[in-house]
């Protein structure tokens, strides 16, 4: 069991799912309440990582954000290094990769709040922002937890993007899934077995929390779990 890779991956997943709460709530808010006629295009863009192969994302991070592109050069002048082969690079790749796993449960739970409650709040003189904070967010607790847990679990299991842009550096970009891959490729099955089992158990526990929450949850809101609402 490679604990260095394990904690690195937990740190990556923790940072990514926390950032996705901050990024995902405004995006989900907009997706829920906007009446823009082209909104479906944004919805499609947010959902893209569910269907795109991770290699597409990896390719873009490597080439479009590499030192040959204007964006990559800008990043390099800012930080002194390219995005590839760094922990930040993995964070950015994972943010994109796990975005729908946070945004979709958020948006589903926001959308499930009874509009009468919103009208009641407005009629009592509260601003939309205050209504969102005091009415929608508390009623969406289970959706927020689901989004956090799903994006955490999804980042834990990330492989393709990391394989393409990570560079397999111990303690920096060698995540647990890469470690398992290396163990298997070197026929080190007992070590791969241990690590795989740990990952399996953690993923199962996380999903159990998500589904349990929806079954007996914080609120009995009728929204579906996950990105497949």
């Amino acid at each position, binding site marked *: 069991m490679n604990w260095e890779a394990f904690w690195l991956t937990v740190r990556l997943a923790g940072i990514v799912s926390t950032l996705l709460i901050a990024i995902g709530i405004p995006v989900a808010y907009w997706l829920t309440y906007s009446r823009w006629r082209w909104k479906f295009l944004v919805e499609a863009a947010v959902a893209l990582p569910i269907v795109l192969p991770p290699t597409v994302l990896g390719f873009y991070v*490597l080439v479009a954000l*590499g030192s040959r592109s204007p964006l*990559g050069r800008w990043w390099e002048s800012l930080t002194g290094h390219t995005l*590839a082969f760094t922990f930040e690079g993995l964070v950015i790749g994972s943010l994109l990769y796990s975005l729908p796993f946070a945004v979709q449960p958020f948006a589903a739970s926001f959308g499930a709040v009874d509009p009468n409650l919103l009208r009641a709040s407005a009629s009592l003189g509260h601003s939309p922002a205050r209504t969102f904070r005091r009415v929608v967010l508390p009623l969406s607790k289970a959706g927020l937890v689901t989004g956090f847990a799903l994006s955490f679990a999804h980042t834990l299991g990330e492989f393709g993007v990391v394989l393409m842009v990570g560079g*397999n*550096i111990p303690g920096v970009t060698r995540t647990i899934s890469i470690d398992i891959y*290396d163990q298997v*490729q070197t026929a080190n099955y007992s070590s791969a077995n241990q690590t795989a089992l740990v990952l399996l158990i953690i993923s199962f526990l996380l999903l159990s929390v998500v589904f349990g929450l929806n079954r007996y949850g914080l609120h009995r809101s009728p929204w579906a779990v996950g990105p497949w609402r």
Partner: protein
Amino acid sequence: MSSMTEMLAVFLLLTGSCATAQEITVAAAADMSAVLPQLAAAYTKKTGQAVKLSFGASGNLTNQIRNGAPFDVFFSADEEYPQQLIADGLASNGTLYRYAVGRLVLWVPSDSPLELSKLGMQALLDPSVKKIAIANPATAPYGRAAAAALRHFGIYDQVSGRLVIGENVAQAAQFVESGNAQAGLIALSHALAPAMKNQGRYWTVPLDAYPTLNQAAVVLSRSNQRDAARKFLEFLRGAEATSLLASYGFSLPAEKHPSGERVK
């Protein structure tokens, strides 16, 4: 019940291998990814025999073969992996053929300020080199060669923090070709390939800096097309094939490198 059986039949029909009896499947070390498609095309043109190619790190391919991958021939980037397969009864001893000696080069993009011809390996100590791409030493012979060469020149400890590890030597080449790494220890065959030829410069690492990459091929025991596979290996001994290999920087083991006979 019968509908289940029908569904299963349809499933098997749809998913069943479409490989014709004629096709041979070749697993090859990643350093062959530029030259082998050309060799295979030349062979198909000559004999009508279709050849399917799969590339990867030699260690990964060996592991796949151990787990029953349906390959007919295996082109390794060293001789150890084929020998292991022979020892385990997964490849036939009589078919082992050392088809080439692989060469390791230090490669930098055209716009790199490094003076390779003057500094050689020491160029890697330049502070502008933030990342050095190598293949994974655990699974790729070129990765082991790169690590050995860095140790040979006494700079391994100084640069180890800057190594980025490609899954195989082709990915290591791609890391440096894309500009994400500033230098790479890659296969000469990639440096000479059309895709990279005009993109950078290289310095050939001397042969005494790393164990010779005696690249060997074997016909796999599980193959049901061992004769067809053997014929493909015979084609590799011919003048047409050896000159194509030579144009990608591969030499024949016997002619120039008597030390290449050293076998573990």
